[in-house]
């Protein structure tokens, strides 16, 4: 099964080849098998879980991850020395989370189909198919660092990036500020590990690990948003009314709450700085 590029197909040929656009996950699975001979094992939850668990275990055993607890304590102290506040809540330890199979498959569905503006041709960056999807999907293994204050996000990102660099791990940073009221920094690194192949042999792949950095208040709103968007992101049809005008919708309340909290956190920082100025 090789990577097939559809970019050279004649106009109209792609649509004919691709058939009708899959509307559901079940259609999508069939489409993957029909179009790209994707083996059923690759679409199997048990296989996915064995791979993702292997990635998780190997990453957690890495020298980098082993160094994290001590680094968190050091960063909390460093922040306290300059700001007189703690960076984290007491005994904070980040949990590692695995993307559930359903979410993983849904994400490939979104990228290949729902959000593919080039349909029936391949999306920007190419099709995400089993031979590459463990490297392409960036949050199969993810963790979240929750800081107490807004300025703690950039403080953490700068210092934690240094730790990644010390371990020769690449790092990319994206400060997300979405229209939907989601605010968080996403640090992404890559880690090479051995995973089982569909044939139960093994292969080495370079996987991405996502580390989200957010504040306590944003974490609360993020949990609310996550439940809502999980269902909504799979629909291929756009709503007729923009959420900003639909004051009775769940989106209106949760999204604006995200923006309001971000503003409030900015005000908290402002008060803290004024207090410090008054002390000095």
């Amino acid at each position, binding site marked *: 099964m090789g990577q097939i590029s559809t970019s050279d197909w004649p106009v109209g040929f792609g649509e004919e080849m691709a058939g009708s656009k899959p509307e559901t996950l079940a259609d999508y699975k069939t489409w993957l098998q029909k179009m790209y001979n994707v083996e059923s094992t690759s679409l199997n939850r048990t296989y996915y879980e064995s791979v993702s668990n292997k990635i998780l275990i190997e990453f957690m055993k890495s020298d980098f991850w082993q160094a994290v607890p*001590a680094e968190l*304590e*050091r960063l909390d*102290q*460093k922040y*306290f*020395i300059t700001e007189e506040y*703690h960076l984290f809540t*007491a005994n904070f330890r980040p949990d590692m989370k695995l993307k559930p199979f359903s979410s993983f498959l849904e994400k490939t569905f979104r990228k290949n189909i729902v959000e593919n503006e080039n349909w029936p041709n391949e999306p920007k960056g190419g099709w995400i198919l089993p031979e590459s999807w463990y490297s392409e999907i960036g949050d199969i293994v993810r963790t979240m660092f929750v800081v107490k204050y807004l300025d703690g996000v950039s403080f953490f990102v700068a210092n934690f990036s240094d730790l990644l660099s010390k371990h020769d791990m690449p790092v990319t940073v994206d400060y997300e500020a979405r229209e939907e009221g989601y605010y968080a920094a996403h640090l992404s690194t890559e880690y090479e590990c051995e995973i089982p192949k569909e044939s139960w042999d093994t292969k080495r792949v370079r996987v991405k690990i996502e580390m989200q950095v957010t504040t306590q208040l944003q974490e609360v709103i993020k949990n609310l948003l996550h439940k809502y968007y999980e269902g909504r992101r799979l629909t291929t049809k756009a709503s007729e009314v923009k959420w900003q005008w639909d004051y009775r919708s769940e989106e209106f309340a949760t999204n604006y709450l995200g923006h309001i909290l971000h503003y409030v956190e900015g005000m908290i920082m402002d008060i803290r700085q004024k207090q410090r100025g008054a002390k000095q």
Partner: protein
Amino acid sequence: MKEEFTRYLYEIGIKDLFYIEVVKTYDRVTKLISDEITDIFVTDYVESDGRRNYEDLILFTSGRIVEAQRFITQGGLFVNQISSYPLAGMDLNSTAYDFENASAESRLNAGLVFGPAGFGGLRIDLKASGNNCDFLTAVLKKYFLSRQ
């Protein structure tokens, strides 16, 4: 800094950058005062979420008590000339502590009043939590209780 001080700091959980702040403060004091520092004590308390916070670094010499208040974040020093003031009294408040065997739940607050109370004397408040209660008891006995 004496090895026993380092050991004490380690035992009450002061390490990494906080340890460096202790050393920096200690070095500043030794540049200012030539007396031998015979003991150190760090006041600490536990927040409602269980986090242990360290507040003031206290350095003892034979005739002085030097307080480095909020030594981690601030740089102020109070040099108390205790040899000029007799200890007038001491308030002791403890929780889950028998002055001998501290547990994680132990708390001890000591308010030391020097000189004629209410007539320009000085007051030093020392507080300890967990195993630091035993260290506070030891310095109270050594510098104040055994002398009276």
